[in-house]
């Protein structure tokens, strides 16, 4: 059999930058291999993919929010959840995780009808879903579908893998208690989702799970250096591990700092983490006295900062892979994309997680000697200073990470993903 000359691959990332930019990397590799990648995107993300040269199809919504409604939503969201981000993972279950699952179920329910219509019109040769929840329309699209497991490996349960979102070690005695509380906290959203699935013609999922593995192909953004030994190994015919999934960005020119010496540290907590201005301000006080230069992603709240130190450069957006490539340390929230980018460029991670799988990656960074982590709350200036200087001085870790990065560069995850996706398509 031969492959179709220019197959249409519909990529459908969730409305978050991590998934969106992961998929940009895969789409760039698909395009380089002659396919026609297109994006299905949620309202608000149109333009993000076009800026990388990809065709976009925005999912229509019945009641699009006005700009002021979105601003009110976020103002309330941040006011409500910032305090929750300082809680332990187990205490976030009822306060943050459960309401977030309810909101995620809403997105799946709301997307279903327009997604079915769009897929019927697009007739893609494959659909790539980078999300944490299933959209029944995808299973009904009549073509292979690919699940991108873009969170930490914990997203796929296993007896030898700590529970998803727990931040626990594999043998932690709290495991059973966490699992029980997780199932209880997300039960209302899960029950609602299973009813929705039944209405849409899909069978129920086990408790606590919102997305099945694909019968065709599943991609895990889990580089070898942080991969876990599973009690039940994943079937290599359907599960492909990627050595990261880093998109190609334009060059980044390191700015001139008034105090222009020392190693370069990049700090980004993602667009949501950037909302915690108070936390970043506390960190700037520490940065000011360290012999290093700091590039800080301040997101949309750059104007909230005053008297920024001379060894700090703030901006609202950076071409992250290009910045990480030039950095000596990456301080981030443990988002899987950020963690993989740090590994891909051989840069140690200092993870300060605030939610979701950031906790899992923080734990894993320490376990694998690829970085360190400190809690979002309760740190002192001395603790942060020691963590930064410790990682900057750890030559052995740096050498190991650089060797690993060289290995990862030989097997770009984006290429492996594109190849695996295209292997599904035959005419």
């Amino acid at each position, binding site marked *: 059999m031969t492959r179709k000359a220019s197959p249409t691959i519909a990529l459908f990332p969730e*409305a*978050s*930058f991590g998934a*969106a930019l992961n998929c940009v990397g895969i789409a760039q590799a698909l395009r380089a291999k002659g396919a026609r990648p297109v994006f299905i995107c*949620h*309202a*608000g*993300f149109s*333009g*993000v993919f*076009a*800026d*990388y*040269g990809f065709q976009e199809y925005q999912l229509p919504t019945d009641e699009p929010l006005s*700009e002021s409604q*979105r*601003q009110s*939503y*976020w*103002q309330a*969201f*941040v*006011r409500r959840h*910032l305090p929750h981000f300082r809680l332990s993972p187990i205490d976030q279950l009822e306060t943050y995780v459960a309401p*977030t*699952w*309810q*909101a*995620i179920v809403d*997105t799946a329910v709301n997307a279903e009808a327009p997604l079915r219509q769009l897929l019927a019109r697009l007739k893609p040769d494959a659909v790539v879903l980078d999300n*944490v929840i299933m959209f029944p329309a995808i299973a009904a699209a009549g073509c292979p579908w690919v699940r991108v497991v873009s969170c930490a490996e914990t997203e796929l349960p296993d007896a030898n893998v700590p529970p998803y979102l727990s931040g626990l070690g594999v043998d932690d005695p709290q495991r059973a208690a966490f699992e029980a509380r997780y199932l209880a906290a997300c039960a209302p959203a899960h029950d609602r989702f299973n009813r929705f699935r039944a209405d849409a013609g899909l069978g129920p999922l086990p408790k606590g799970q919102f997305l099945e593995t694909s019968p065709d192909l599943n991609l895990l953004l889990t580089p070898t250096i942080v991969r876990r030994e599973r009690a039940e190994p994943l079937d290599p015919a359907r599960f492909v591990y990627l050595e990261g999934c880093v998109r*190609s*960005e*334009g*060059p980044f*020119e390191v*700015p*001139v700092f*008034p105090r222009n010496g020392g190693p370069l540290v990049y700090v980004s907590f993602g*667009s*949501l983490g*950037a909302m915690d201005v108070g936390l970043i301000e506390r960190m700037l006080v520490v940065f000011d006295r360290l012999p290093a230069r700091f590039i800080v992603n301040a*997101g*949309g*709240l*750059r*104007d*909230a*900062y*005053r*008297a*920024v130190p*001379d060894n*700090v450069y703030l*901006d*609202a*957006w*950076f*071409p992250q892979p290009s910045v990480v490539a030039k950095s000596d340390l990456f301080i981030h929230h443990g988002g899987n994309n950020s963690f993989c980018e740090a590994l891909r460029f051989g840069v140690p991670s200092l993870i300060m997680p605030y939610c*979701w799988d950031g906790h899992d990656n923080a734990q894993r960074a320490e376990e694998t000697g690829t970085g360190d982590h400190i809690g979002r709350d309760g740190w002192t200036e001395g603790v942060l200073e020691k963590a930064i200087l410790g990682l900057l001085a750890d030559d052995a870790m740096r050498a190991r990470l650089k060797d690993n990065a060289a290995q990862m560069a030989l097997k770009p995850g984006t290429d492996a993903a594109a190849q695996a996706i295209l292997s599904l398509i035959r005419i």
Partner: protein
Amino acid sequence: MQAAARRPRTNHLDLAQRILDVARQRGFEPGTRLPEQQIASLCNVSRTPVRAALGLLAERGVVRWEAESGYHLAIDLTAQASVATELPAAEEDELAEAILRDRSARRLDQTVTVAGLMRRYSAERKTVLKALNKLTEENLLDRAPGQSWLFRRTPDDPEAQGDSYEFRLLLEPAAILTPGFRLDGARAATLRQAMEALVTLPDAAFDTREFQRLDIDFHGMLAEGSANRFIADALADHLRLRRLPGIYAGVNVFRLRQSLREHLVILDHLESLQYEVAADLLRIHLRLSRNQRPQAASRGAPALFGTISRPE
């Protein structure tokens, strides 16, 4: 700021730049003689400052001096859109740049004082005042009561960027459509050459700073071509804001390259005197450039555009 004594005076630098502008506009080729008297009358100044400015250009290799025939143009001015980079910066220009850079990085507050800037930059009072006056003349600062100055709002947040594009959408096509529009042919040819060179560079070698220079020059050329001086002046004032640090940060190379191609097509239509088509294409170009990514996004949440206030 310690090397101030060796720096040329600002007025000589300005004049040197004006001499080059005149030479470019008149199509002077390499080797063209530059008699002091002729240059003085073309620039409306006396011969003494012209001599100093030509001396400055000779130091940079832009002109050469021959004992028998005086100064001659030494470079091909059509090969580069601007020779500003050839000239050294005056002390106050350097300070003004540092002030803008530090404001952009939020190291300086919106209000600054002369005393505060003298301390921060170890600079003399007169240098700080000159830098502040320069920024005030460029409409980047306003004098506030006492010895303080207030930075004007710049298009470096989503809301201000939106306003900036609205303003440009109103005025830039109008600059072309107002009867009497004239394209500076030599400048257009130089720009075309530079844009065509930049557009072919691979992602990893793409020079964003060069893009910024060409983008400002391209839109500035359209503004200056307008026969309506009020439109031209308003746009020139506004486009000056786009040379501030950070304005082009965060735009993907793909979009920058696409933007260059749009410039080239607009230029095609301007050169063939199809002004209405050029104005329509310019509107589309500005709308596409305005496209911006959300300020924040999270699982299950609608993407955020615009700004929200600092959470407490």
